[in-house]
């Protein structure tokens, strides 16, 4: 069908989604954004969050993405994700443990800016994971 985006979600292990959609929501580093057909070409890094597709063959689908990279072209969206999980695949207890680990790292980081960053990263990822898992409908 015309005027639909070709969406691909690729992880190091497999190609998760290869389908079409009307719209796609992306967790860009600086906040969520939505891409529709005819979007201007764009490259962006993705933070931890959810990728959502709407309409088209893909239908309503949600994937949790920890870190990724996206290329938006007028008719095509390609997402490179380090890990991508369906909400039901998320292990909530593990995510909780991760969050605790992140908080521990954060409190131990001291003056080291790099460690702070790493700790923040872990916390951010775990929180996004939990949010994604709890909003399961």
């Amino acid at each position: 069908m015309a005027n639909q985006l070709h969406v691909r979600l690729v992880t190091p292990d497999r190609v998760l989604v290869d389908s079409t959609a009307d719209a796609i929501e992306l967790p860009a580093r600086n906040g969520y954004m939505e891409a529709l057909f005819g979007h201007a070409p764009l490259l962006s890094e993705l933070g931890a969050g959810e990728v959502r597709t709407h309409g088209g063959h893909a239908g309503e689908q949600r994937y949790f993405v920890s870190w990724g990279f996206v290329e938006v072209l007028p008719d095509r969206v390609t997402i490179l994700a380090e890990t991508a999980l369906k909400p039901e695949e998320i292990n909530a207890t593990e995510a909780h443990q991760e969050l605790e680990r992140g908080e521990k790292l954060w409190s131990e980081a001291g003056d080291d800016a790099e460690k702070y960053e790493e700790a923040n990263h872990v916390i951010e990822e775990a929180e996004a994971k939990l949010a994604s898992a709890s909003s399961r409908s």
Partner: protein
Amino acid sequence: MANVLDLRRRIRSVKNTRQITKAMKMVAAARLRRAQEKALSSRPYAMMMTSVLQSLRRRVDAVDPETGQMHPLLVTRPEKNILLVVISGEGGFAGAFNANIVKAANTFIAGHKDAQVDIQAIGRKGRDVLRRRYPAAQFTDSARQEGRHRAAPVELLDDHHHGILHQLNFERASGLAHEITSLYAHEKIDAAYVVYNEFKSVIQQRVVVERVLPILEIGEREVALTQEMTQEERERAGEAAISSGVSLSEAEAEAGAKQAEEEARRFGTAEVDYIYEQDPGELFNALLPRYVATQLYHAMLESVAAEFAARMTAMDSATNNASELIDSLTLAMNRVRQAAITKELIEIVSGAAAL
């Protein structure tokens, strides 16, 4: 001369061995197929990563405009401290697989006499051999790898990546890559190389030493040392593959992947002006460490596939040898039995004749 009973016992024992080797061969073949699939399905990601980095590299200066410094992973320094990642197998019974890897690692070390080499061994077999040969690195604070006390020019780093090849996933590979890149960024090492067994197909493998850091040219692989399979090995591997039903060429599997790869190659390289959501330089910095991770992951995937291929070949040879041994033992046993019968007959006949 051995008696029939002894020979029969030998045959039974060899038969048992043959059964084991045959089972191992089949298991290796099945796991090889899975490893091949995994390696194949990781390709689109790696290709996309490479092409987007290449196109970014063309558009963006890797030099930070504020400080005028290159990205730390692109800086080259004289190679005084080298990290050598040795990817070997987790198990034995794989012919010369592990020995070849260790040999390549030793050749590399011998060729860098004036440098200090740290070895990070991935895979149990290589680690065990290297541990006997090189001393372990000493740290006063071993948990954080600080307070290094260097005793020998070549030392083995403490390994906390046990079993990474058993349950190979990208997360663990990128954990390792993260360690390496941070060592490099802090100038603890001046170069990082990987020794692993490259796997194109069952009959196309070679041991390579590849440089992963510093990154000089994205998408180009820098191979420092290779060791090809011999013709004989190749033939053996081919026979083994046929007898266990593994396809020799990648042709069938490739066909589907080709198109995806073509598309992957175009990823992020369209001749349009992209809107960069972030600063392109920032994107570049975020992508470079991941590029190293994909390279390492790729090396490990190939090494795992190669290990199973080597095991399959070795076990096929063992099965054939066992069959041959059984044949010759059976022949010997029949001879002995016949000789005994003949002897008894002669005794009876000559006994009767004497009457």
